[in-house]
């Protein structure tokens, strides 16, 4: 399949680029403290339905981790475990440990609002507030009670610059955010998330509603962002996973089938189902 070769080509390129660092890293096994997020024996239920089955996974800081798998495989559910976004679902139930920054976010006394400031989220469909561009980015600071106008102005500017939106909107900060194009809206949503200075950014298929050019811009952005943030991204697009991620985890029917370095998952997957999925034979 043409599709496969394209993906593999990408991986080859990546491989040669990353090789020195990667081999260095793999030499010594890591301690748990070095991971940003750890899940142990994680089970998630919606009522009777078990959405995730015994998930054990560790996510490294300052990297992009892609969660892939066919629809309904539990990857989005898994993503939303990290900022407790599933809590609003009526019959949601969770067992096992989810450790973010050495804290068990489901059993220890943590402030859910603080957790969500540290673990930001970007959604599938751009969802800016029906407010001005400025107020969208300033929102997170305002709810924290920040009053310092100078600080807010600077933060809005720097956040918009981080997502390369500043030059496009700097003269129209008072314009309603809904007037922006889909791609601009999504970058605005990322800027809005960055403004509260999270450490982890969860992205739930952030480009699935966007055109290829906007998608490209956001993927470029991910390369810059991973120097400062830990990024976990759910994607349906195999090539995207191959392009942007350092690690990939493949989910199928609530099971974590396989996880590892993206280069390895895409070139020599150890599980037959992973191989079938990434080569487009099902999913």
């Amino acid at each position, binding site marked *: 399949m043409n599709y496969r070769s394209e993906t593999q080509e990408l991986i080859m390129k990546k491989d040669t680029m990353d090789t020195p660092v990667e081999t260095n890293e793999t030499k010594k096994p890591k301690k748990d403290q070095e991971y940003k997020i750890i899940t142990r024996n994680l089970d998630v239920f919606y009522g009777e339905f078990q959405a995730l089955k015994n998930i054990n996974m560790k996510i490294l800081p300052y990297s992009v981790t892609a969660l892939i798998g066919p629809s309904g495989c539990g990857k989005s559910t898994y993503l939303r475990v990290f900022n407790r*976004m599933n809590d609003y679902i009526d019959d949601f139930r969770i067992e096992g440990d989810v450790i973010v920054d050495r804290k068990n976010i489901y059993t220890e006394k943590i402030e859910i*609002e603080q957790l*969500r*400031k540290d673990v930001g*989220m970007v959604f599938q469909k751009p969802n800016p*507030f029906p407010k001005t561009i400025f107020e969208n980015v300033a929102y997170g600071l305002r*709810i924290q009670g920040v009053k310092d106008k100078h600080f807010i102005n600077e933060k809005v500017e720097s956040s918009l610059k981080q997502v390369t939106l500043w030059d496009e909107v700097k003269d129209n900060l008072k314009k309603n955010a809904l007037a922006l194009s889909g791609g601009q809206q999504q970058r605005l949503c990322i800027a809005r998330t960055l403004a*509260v200075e999270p450490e982890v950014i969860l992205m739930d298929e952030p480009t699935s509603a966007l055109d290829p050019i906007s998608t490209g811009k956001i993927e470029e952005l991910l390369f810059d962002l991973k120097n400062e943030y830990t990024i976990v991204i759910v994607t349906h697009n195999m090539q995207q996973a191959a392009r942007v991620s350092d690690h990939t985890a493949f989910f199928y029917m609530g099971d974590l089938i396989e996880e590892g370095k993206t280069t390895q998952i895409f070139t020599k997957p150890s599980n037959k189902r992973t191989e079938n999925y990434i080569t487009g034979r099902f999913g």
Partner: protein
Amino acid sequence: MKKTKEVVIEKFLLFSALITILTTIGIVLVLAIEAFKFFREVSVFEFLTDTEWTPLFTKKRFGILPLLSGTFLTSIIAIAVALPIGLTIAIFLSEYAPRKFREYIKPSLEMLAAVPTVVYGFFALTVVTPFLQTIIPGMSGFNSLSAGIVMGIMIIPIISSLSEDALRAVPNSLREASYGMGSTRLQTAFKVTVPAASSGIVVSIILAISRAIGETMIVAIAAGQQPRLTMNPLVPVETLTAYIVQVSLGDVPHNSLEYRTIFAAGITLFIFTFILNNISHWIKNKYREKYD
């Protein structure tokens, strides 16, 4: 054969639609013609500026202001009661209440709107007023306060139900965005959901005001029948609607000037509710497609 049947049904449907339109036109025409006859004898200037309304006395004065003040006083009291309560209920139901709870509470709240207004009127006169008199000595038996409060209770479901619909129409993605940035439920409700639903909430308030202005039975029973230009909620007043009831039920001869006063009052009332309904319609259309 089939074709004739179709045509007959089509004509029948058109006829039904026309009846409602013709009825409305008829009512407006009658109002306008009778009011016109009234204004041939009483100048519009006197009608709008005189501070006394005594068409049934020997010394006749035709100032609409006392009736307007009665209407506005009772309506303002009603909104002052209904707005905070209705909005709180709407926010609670849409942002906090579990789905099951909402499914039971909303219909029972809407029952409030099914209570006949005459029952509310009696409730105001025989329960609320005596109760308020124990707190505020010297309050008269007929007053705009208890009529307004009870009218407020009556229009709570208009505000709570329509506002809740507006709040629930706000896409969940906005709530998620807000929660995802570390907002509490309260912050999300007041900084995201309520502003996003503001047009719908304003519409609900306008419709509630319109309902309060047009409400008749409660004020006719509990607010009194003394046209009085006052903002004191403790004394008897008379609203536009209550005046119309008073004259319609009385022995004022038809086609007299006294009789025509009710059309003048009626058209005043009509103008206000017409304007309010149009504003709400305009707001609804203007903001309808703001978000998908």
